[in-house]
């Protein structure tokens, strides 16, 4: 008993709950440098060095690391194409970067000592990081929307075209536009809070569970759950950003009929092909 509990037995124990934000290590001018920043730099160095190692001497027949990275990139590319077709492929770099960074950060939060010692704190368990990513994605997709649709882009928020069908429909269109405008702003908030809540909540759950279950290692299934949730949340964040991009560059007007159908609509049916052949 003495050996197992040197500080005396206490149940439930005192939990060391990780802090909801990073803690300041030192100041650079007025800006604090937190442990989340430090861990973020570590993640970036890790991802960057893996990328450099994999592409340093590329070969025609890839082996080892290059093979794995090619599999990953091809998988992400196929995924993006299955979501938005060819026109979504330009957003693959942003999608993949967000996905890899978030997943590695999420997985760091279940690594022992991260979030418990003073100089390590998972970046996505600090909502400032998540808000920065959400804000960057927000400005990026708004810019893409304006670049693709020019001045007809804001028409989805301020839509007065319904008035030619009567005042009631016009008012409804204007109200729908207002809802769209506010949902744009809420997207940033929900992107931030969803990721932060999941990662931070997972950290708390791991601390509490391993404290309550007493025997070391019995909380391992929860670690597995957190690894899965980290993967899904990284995918969800990146996927939602991708969807916002696709929605932003999609026009709501008449050219919807010709250009922006999904791939399944474009598959020609055999009857349409057969008819001109019969006529000729």
């Amino acid at each position, binding site marked *: 008993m003495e050996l197992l509990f040197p500080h005396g037995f206490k149940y439930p124990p005192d939990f060391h*709950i990780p802090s*909801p934000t990073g803690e300041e290590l030192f100041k650079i001018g007025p800006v604090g440098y937190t442990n989340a920043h430090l861990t973020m730099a570590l993640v970036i160095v890790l991802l960057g060095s893996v990328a450099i190692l994999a592409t340093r001497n590329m070969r025609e027949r890839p082996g080892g690391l290059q093979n794995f990275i090619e599999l990953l990139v091809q998988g992400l590319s196929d995924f993006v194409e*299955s*979501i938005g077709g060819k026109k979504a492929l330009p957003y693959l770099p942003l999608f993949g970067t967000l996905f890899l960074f978030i997943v590695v950060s999420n997985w760091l939060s279940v690594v022992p000592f991260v979030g418990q010692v003073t100089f390590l704190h998972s970046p996505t368990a600090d909502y400032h990081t998540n808000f920065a990513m959400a804000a960057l994605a927000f400005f990026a997709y708004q810019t893409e929307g304006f670049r693709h649709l020019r001045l007809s882009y804001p028409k989805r928020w301020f839509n007065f075209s319904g008035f030619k069908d009567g005042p009631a429909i016009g008012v409804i269109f204007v109200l729908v536009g207002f809802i769209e405008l506010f949902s744009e702003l809420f997207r940033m908030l*929900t992107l931030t*809070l*969803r990721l932060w*809540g*999941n990662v*931070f*909540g997972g950290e708390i759950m791991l601390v509490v569970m391993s404290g309550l279950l007493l025997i070391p290692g019995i909380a391992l299934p929860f670690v597995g759950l957190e690894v899965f949730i980290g993967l*899904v*949340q990284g*995918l*969800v964040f990146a*996927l*939602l950003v991708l*969807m916002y991009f696709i929605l932003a560059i999609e026009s709501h007007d008449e050219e919807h009929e010709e250009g922006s159908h999904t791939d399944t609509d474009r598959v020609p049916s055999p009857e349409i092909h057969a008819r001109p052949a019969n006529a000729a």
Partner: protein
Amino acid sequence: MEAIGAGLAIGFGVIGPGIGIGILTGASSEAIGRNPDAGGAIRTNMILGAALAEGLGILSFVLGILLWTRIGG
């Protein structure tokens, strides 16, 4: 009082998303069972919808955390 409020906020706040995700997952499992070829598209939409439903639960979690920091936990 804040402690009770934090518990209630999380407890009641996750009822709705729980029901929503349950319905969503059940319906999409049924859909995949009927049409396994469309499984990929259905699964993507399911994850998206689950994330959107879950966001509401997370909002209540954030409220709980805010109250919890007030009681100095």
